[in-house]
């Protein structure tokens, strides 16, 4: 019982960090509200380090995720006959003063799915790799397309996350 309360407190702290960093990532991209892709960037930076380890475990570079987001925009614009130069390499960051942020619908969908996912795993803490697994299941999202560009297979990612979870002492 006591362990579960501690776990819940830890999860609340993780969620606060995840949301705050996702907001920061969105603002750095010149966007007001975070989408699922910003939650993935946030998860990669979570102090537990599990998202980074899982991505490395399956042979990908976590740093490539941001590039994969940009690449999908460039490819999509090229398919419409538009030069990639129309997308800024370094969009001007915005400084949002909003205290209580909202998320884009994809960000909200991720948090909802993450909640449902965690209900199934009540006895383990919420970790960055959980965010990766849920985001990878959103195949048609910006994050899903970025994973596809990185050559990430959802099944392999999920299996690596399970292995990682089994190896963690908490």
């Amino acid at each position, binding site marked *: 019982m006591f362990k579960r309360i501690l776990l819940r407190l830890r999860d609340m702290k993780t969620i606060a960090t995840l949301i705050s960093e996702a907001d920061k990532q969105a603002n750095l991209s010149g966007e007001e509200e975070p989408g699922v892709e910003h939650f993935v960037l946030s998860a990669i930076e979570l102090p537990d380090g599990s998202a980074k380890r899982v991505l490395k475990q399956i042979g990908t570079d976590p740093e490539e995720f941001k590039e994969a987001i940009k690449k999908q925009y460039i490819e999509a614009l090229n398919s*419409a006959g*538009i030069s990639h130069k129309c997308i800024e390499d370094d969009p001007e960051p915005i400084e949002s003063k909003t205290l209580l942020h909202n998320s884009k619908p994809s960000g909200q969908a991720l948090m909802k799915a993450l909640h449902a996912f965690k209900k199934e795993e009540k006895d383990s803490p919420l970790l960055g790799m959980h965010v990766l697994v849920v985001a990878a299941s959103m195949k048609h999202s910006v994050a899903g*397309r970025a994973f596809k560009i990185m050559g990430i297979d959802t099944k392999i990612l999920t299996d690596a996350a399970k292995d990682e979870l089994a190896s963690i002492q908490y």
Partner: protein
Amino acid sequence: MSTIKSLPSPDNPEEALAAVVALRVMAEQLEKKAVKEAIAQGWSWSQIAEALGVTKQAAHKRHAASIKKKS
């Protein structure tokens, strides 16, 4: 700015919807730059709102913070 020569076919929703998202990102970036330039050229928020087809409040809410930051 390039002109759109071709658009992905709606028959291929995967490609077409990815293009919609990318076009939206491009449009938002263009909007930010254009509003910043309009303010620098002395446009009022009412004029910007009229040009964007939104209310003055909506235009101000969306862009005022980033404009103030630069001035």
